[in-house]
């Protein structure tokens, strides 16, 4: 029975593995579990469910028995834009991303037989991006992107070793795979009419890097935690680039271009993912109220460029991002309202790693403030939770001193705004 439940939960979780959308700065998705989401993902010093595999695997040493857990955080991002294509463009354009809901999975199995060693394995998606602009063929930023999707799945098996009373050290392997898809238009040079539609699609090879966790609980009330996931270079070999003339019969320019470049060809590239470090402290006030603070640092400077190496060398190009390292502060509050109910809340301030020059239709990033709420219900061996988070991005205007930061004819300038609603569900079974 236990095995069947475990299997059922894991299969259910795997079924929801899918697209992700940037929720934290850059294109990270820090919401590896629904309960953690309710707590503003301030979870490194607590890490008392399966999502510990991401937030701090050393938490496994403080759990008891076995646990299977499935989380699904449904993300509904919104992006809007108002601005112009260039300084000499007489028309103000607006844009809006399509209403899409991206499921972010978190499927975990943990086992602590009670000795010094605990074990766990998790499947989650710590990086992802989905920005699909409405009316892509008309969207003012279509020269850069009208549809971009990045999906990243980590499988992390980890061992946690209890080294002494209240102190544990964990090590794991982050096994990662990534899918990448980008669609854009190239207009005919002088009419501005769309001539070529380009679709880049790739699937990375498997990448392995280590991760570490550390937890120290000197007493019942205080907990200190730290975690570190190494940076990654996701290699894409033999991706597919497809160039289509938008009006094959009517547009000689587009036809000539597709003919000259080759309609279909292979593409290689590499996407660097940042290292992630979190330091956390949690304290229980009285019997029922617990607060946690996390300082999280992303090594986003690793994401400096995207070098696209096409089969046709003439097409090779480098897109510069020049991200900078960034940080977040996270606060989580957990109140045990009754024996069966916990009420949770959180707040996050998230600094963007994206320099103003890199703000683009691909990802208009900004500093963000997140607010979260959630409820946990426990009954017998089961527990259920529901979480809600709103991610409020600050408006980002890529104009400085009266001049567009990037005064070109392909990157629009103006103001981007963003917001995301997240609704999470988690179910766990302890055995």
């Amino acid at each position, binding site marked *: 029975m236990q095995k069947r439940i475990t299997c059922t939960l894991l299969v259910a979780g795997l079924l929801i593995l899918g697209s992700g959308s940037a929720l934290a700065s850059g294109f990270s998705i820090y919401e590896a579990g629904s309960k953690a989401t309710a707590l503003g993902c301030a979870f490194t010093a607590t890490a008392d469910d399966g999502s510990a595999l991401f937030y701090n695997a050393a938490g496994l040493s403080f759990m008891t028995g076995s646990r299977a857990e499935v989380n699904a955080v449904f993300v509904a991002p919104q992006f809007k834009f108002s601005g112009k294509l260039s300084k000499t463009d007489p028309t103000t354009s607006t844009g809006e991303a399509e209403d899409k809901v991206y499921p972010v999975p978190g499927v975990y199995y943990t086992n602590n037989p009670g000795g010094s060693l605990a074990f766990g394995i998790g499947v989650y998606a710590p990086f992802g991006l989905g920005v699909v602009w409405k009316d892509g063929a008309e969207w003012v930023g279509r020269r850069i992107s009208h549809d971009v999707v990045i999906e990243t799945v980590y499988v992390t098996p980890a061992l946690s070793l209890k080294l002494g009373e209240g102190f544990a050290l964990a090590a794991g392997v982050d096994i990662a795979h990534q899918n990448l898809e980008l669609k854009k238009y190239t207009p005919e040079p002088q009419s501005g009419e769309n001539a070529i539609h380009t679709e880049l699609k790739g699937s990375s090879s498997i990448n392995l890097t280590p991760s570490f966790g550390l937890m120290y609980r000197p007493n019942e009330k205080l907990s200190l935690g730290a975690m570190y996931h190494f940076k990654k270079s996701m290699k894409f070999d033999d991706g597919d680039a497809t160039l289509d003339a938008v009006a094959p019969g009517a547009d000689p320019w587009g036809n000539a271009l597709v003919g000259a470049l080759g309609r279909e060809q292979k593409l290689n590239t590499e996407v660097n993912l940042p290292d992630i470090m979190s330091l956390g402290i949690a304290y229980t006030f009285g019997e029922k109220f617990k607060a946690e603070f996390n300082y999280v640092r992303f090594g986003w400077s690793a994401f400096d460029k995207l070098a696209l190496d096409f089969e046709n060398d003439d097409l090779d190009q480098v897109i510069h991002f020049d991200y900078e390292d960034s940080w977040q502060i996270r606060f989580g509050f957990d109140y045990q309202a009754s024996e069966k109910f916990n009420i949770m809340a959180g707040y996050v301030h998230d600094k963007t790693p994206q320099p103003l020059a890199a703000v683009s239709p691909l990802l208009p990033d900004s500093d963000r403030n997140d607010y979260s709420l959630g409820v946990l219900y426990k009954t017998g061996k089961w527990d259920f939770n529901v979480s809600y988070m709103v991610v409020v991005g600050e408006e980002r*205007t890529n104009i400085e001193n009266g001049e567009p930061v990037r*005064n070109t004819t392909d990157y629009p300038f103006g103001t981007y*705004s963003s917001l995301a609603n997240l609704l999470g569900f988690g179910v766990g079974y302890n055995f």
Partner: protein
Amino acid sequence: MKKLLTSISMLALLLALLLAGCSLDDPADPTGTVNPSSPADASTPYVAIGNSLTAGFMDSGLMKAGQANSYPMIVATQMGLNKDTFTQPWIEAPGIGTTNVGAGNVSGVLHFNGTAVLPLGITPQAEVPGLLLAVAQPTQYHNLGVPGAFSFDLMNAHSAATSYGVNLGSPNTFFEFINRAGDLVSLFKNIEVPANPPAPGYQSGSQFYQTIAKGPALVTAWIGGNDFLFGATSGEPIGHPAITPAATFATNYGGFLHSLAGGLLQRNGFPPTIICATLPLVRNITYFLDRPTFEAVFGARVYDEPDAEYILFTDFLSAGMPATLPVEMTLDTAEVTYLDTEVIGAYNTAIQTVVAQVNGNPDVPAHADFVDFNANVDALRATNPDALRHFLFLGIIYPDDTIAETAARTYFALDGVHPNNQGYAFVANGFLEVINSVTGSSYSPVPPEAMTWDPTYGVPIPAKAARGGIPRISPEVAEAMRRSFR
């Protein structure tokens, strides 16, 4: 029980929040905070439009040696630009010329070998693409001078088949590689894709559209010479089919210049600066040698046109200096009057009228002015008459000169119509003066005497070739000189 109620209430509140969600307001349009467009925002400072005179055509052909000294290149250099920021359709030696060297071959430019004027080289047609050094340039050229372009072509020609030359039985293939959209691959990479193009119609790819796509702050336009020169150099211009009627020229020129001003204003968001130039009258075209000067050297001749005023000097040489000059070898009083008043003079009136209209149009603000080419040349003649004489003629009247000394005297190339390096500097100075006047800039002129023109193109002169005497010009070369204007 109370705790349970509290918990249920909290859960209800949470669900309500989830259902409602938060929504995103539209961001305010911030573009009003951006500084107005100015010439500094132009995607390029300068584009030149024209015909062979703009392209840097020299010695009956287009080749990098002449292009390096085209007047637009000189103007651009004085503006602080260079070969990378002011691009031209560079052509490798021996260039692309106009001499008939037989089917399947293309002549190079002409050069002087000490005794005769000959093509510098001959290139098989199939190898001509190898001469086009800049064909892979990613975008439109800054120098949009197309040898042989007529006023009609400004708005309409983007290929040999669409050029005005078709009407004259000679499609202009220069359009094929000068007026092209740019290298496909680089355009694909979003280089210089115009933000605010004119209404659809790019497929024409004419000089006009190429210029709008380029989006310059300054344009020079010198066009119209081909509308009359082929007719004029026939020796029988009156009623010649290759001469564009003045009214047609005025329509072509007006349509072009008004469209250019409006197109650039729309493209750039600020008024463009457009500097035009008038066209040379007969007296200011070296190809035509005035009769008194001619007779002072060659003595009196019999003329089939008794009131001949100008002699087509190179035709005279190629015909073996005949005692009687046929009607095709001279321009008589009626022909000169016709050309200078009803054709060139009327063209120049149209140019000045249109320039004034564009400059004063309150609805489409633009800064427009023109270079008075004839006034400049007349002033030059007063101080340096040799500058306006043909190299071959100067060789006859200065028999003790070295080739280099003779070359340094004249501002005109071997074909007698196109300036040489000194002459293009002179033309550039005319444009620079007006540009400075209109824009308030202070670009320096280039001393023509500082430029060197080598009519031998560095080809060693055979030892037996004695300097002096009457140079030889074959009928093919004479024809090439005439065809330089088509």
